[in-house]
């Protein structure tokens, strides 16, 4: 046993796969201990906030202000509001409004803005201008308002007695706050999803749930497959015929179709993550059963089994000690494959909307499902679905690496 384990860990592929898998497991275990937020808590009002560091604006005003004089601050401010396309658009509008093209200096921000402020009128109807363009110019006009002003912004609050605004302070353009001094800063490394939840926290729990689903499904499928395969293969005869008949029935009906039918008929109310895992397990044992059976059939005529019989051992003893150890490595590999295919099956089901009950627990598939419903993939909100794909791929990849690694160890024909 020790020897086998040592051999297994000598396989590079296995070690890489195992490290990835253990890495995922570690993150899944320790992340919730460090970040103690409820993964399904809606924290964002609005959908798909981009990844980043969110600094509370109110608190930043209350934090100590520091004056930092940076030459390019104003330039950056202007560039952010007025890029080259905007300048070109302003020129087009001005030309259409009858300003001579020569008078427009597109690079000279001051003169350009001057012309714009003096001439722009949102009610002007320019032939051929679409509503979308008109809305754009209005937005641009709003954004440009006071762009070149060097005055600070005034912070005021309402006097409860007079109802008038009273100046509380001025935020100058050179004012900075230290993020560390702002009491409310929220880091959203992967932004938020359509519900306004922190994607990273959700992803970690979803991974944990999906792994649990995969492991439960894999254990069930492997256990059923192993028992049926052993019984069918070793006892043979009528028992074999009956079991193989059932197995063949399951093969003819593609398991995913079966899975869909069962999940659909269970109904949303009963579909917890565990139920889904059980359903996946009960529909995916077929190949394990067949493979185990054929292995057992070839084993049961082996001389060591005959010798064991001649030594007076019982059937149970022979199955347990002379057959099972020989297929154990195979069963372990099958288990690994079943776990990863269980995770994929859950994802597939959830994407079809047949996964676990929607918002009890997050799963990788459900995250994909919601991202798709809210069209994250079309709107380019990559953080809502891409990390999920990566995690699914990593799990499947690590499982497969472990599997091929084991295969190399247990199957001498593949050793190099």
């Amino acid at each position, binding site marked *: 046993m020790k020897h086998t384990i040592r051999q297994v860990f000598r396989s590079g592929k296995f070690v890489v796969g195992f490290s990835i898998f253990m890495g995922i497991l570690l993150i899944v275990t320790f992340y919730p201990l460090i970040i103690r937020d409820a993964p399904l808590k809606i924290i964002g009002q609005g959908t798909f906030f981009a990844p980043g560091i969110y600094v509370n604006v109110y608190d930043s005003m209350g934090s100590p202000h520091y004056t930092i004089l940076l030459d390019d601050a104003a330039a950056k401010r202007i560039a952010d509001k007025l890029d080259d396309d905007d300048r070109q658009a302003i020129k087009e509008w001005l030309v259409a409004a009858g300003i001579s093209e020569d008078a427009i200096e597109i690079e000279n921000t001051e003169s350009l803005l001057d012309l714009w402020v003096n001439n722009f009128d949102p009610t002007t109807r320019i032939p051929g201008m679409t509503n979308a363009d008109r809305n754009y110019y209005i937005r641009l006009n709003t954004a440009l308002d006071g762009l070149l002003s060097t005055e600070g912004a005034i912070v005021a609050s309402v006097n409860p007695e007079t109802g008038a605004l009273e100046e509380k302070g001025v935020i100058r353009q050179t004012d900075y706050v230290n993020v560390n001094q702002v009491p409310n800063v929220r880091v959203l490394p992967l932004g938020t999803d359509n519900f306004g939840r922190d994607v990273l926290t959700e992803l970690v729990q979803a991974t944990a749930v999906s792994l649990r689903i995969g492991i439960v499904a894999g254990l069930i499928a492997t256990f059923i497959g192993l028992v049926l395969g052993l019984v069918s293969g070793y006892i043979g005869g009528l028992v074999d015929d009956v079991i193989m008949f059932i197995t063949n029935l399951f093969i003819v009906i593609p398991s995913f179709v079966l899975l869909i039918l069962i999940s659909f008929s269970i109904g949303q109310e009963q579909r917890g993550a565990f139920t889904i895992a059980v359903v996946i397990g009960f529909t995916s044992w077929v190949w394990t059963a067949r493979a185990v059976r054929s292995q057992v059939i070839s084993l049961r005529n082996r*001389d*060591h089994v*005959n*010798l*064991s019989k001649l*030594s007076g051992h019982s059937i149970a003893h022979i199955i347990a*000690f002379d057959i099972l*150890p*020989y297929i154990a490595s195979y069963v372990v590999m099958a288990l690994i494959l079943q776990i990863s295919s269980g995770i994929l099956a859950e994802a597939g089901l959830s994407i079809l909307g047949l996964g676990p009950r929607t918002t009890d627990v997050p799963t990788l598939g459900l995250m994909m499902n919601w991202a798709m419903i809210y069209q994250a993939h079309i709107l380019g909100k990559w953080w809502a679905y891409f990390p999920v794909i990566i995690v699914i791929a990593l799990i499947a990849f690590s499982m497969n690496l472990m599997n091929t690694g084991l295969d190399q160890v247990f199957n001498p024909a593949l050793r190099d």
Partner: protein
Amino acid sequence: MNAGKKPCLSGRGVTKEFGFGRNKTVAVDGVDFDFYEGEIISIVGESGSGKTTLAKMLLGLINATEGDIFFQGKKRNIGSHRKKKEYWKSIQAIFQDPFSSYNTFNKIDSVLLDCIRMRGGGRLPREKKIELMTEACSFVNLKFEELTNKYPFELSGGQQQRLMIARIFLLKPQILLADEPTSMIDACSRTTILDTLMQLRDEIGMTPIFITHDIGLAYYVSDTVYIMERGKFVESGTADQVILNPKKPYTQRLINDVPKIYEEWDLSTV
């Protein structure tokens, strides 16, 4: 020649069929035989002749489709697991491929301890068991101290096959079925195995039955030779009779096709 001796294993019309209907094949086709105590018997046949199937029936690993097998004059009864266990105290086997004959997950000690248990020595003190195992190993020229805690696959083929004989030494059966015991063994070790087997025979007085395709070996070791073709015994008799003066065309051809060294090998008869 066999007068006065009693048969330890006999068969009447022993038949084994596999499959049903069109797929039916007859592996062993109604053979009759009497294997006498103390003799060395060889069953010679080419691959597919049914000799291994017959061996398995003799061992009770598979049941005959038809016919009866008599053990020590009585019809053999191995209906229950207990009866089988009893039967296997009297008849044991050595298989062709030593590399697949052992459970690779069991240590050599456990292989030998199984035999001691089989002989009712399960409750012996540990020292006694070790003594028995050491004795068995030294009989086949192995050192138990070196083997203990090792796995069979760590031994060479010849050593594994000798360990198999050590097993027989411990079990002391009346009959030993040796199914191609040397075909996977190097030429040099082959002699050792045969010698050890013969020595064991003298020691415990068992009846060896060789199942082999090697006519040379059969001729060399056995008293009585059975030639098997397509599930039937086509010729039997003493080794000299059958091999030096074959009567049946099949036997003649078989012997003719084996390369010779003392005489000219007639290649024209193919």
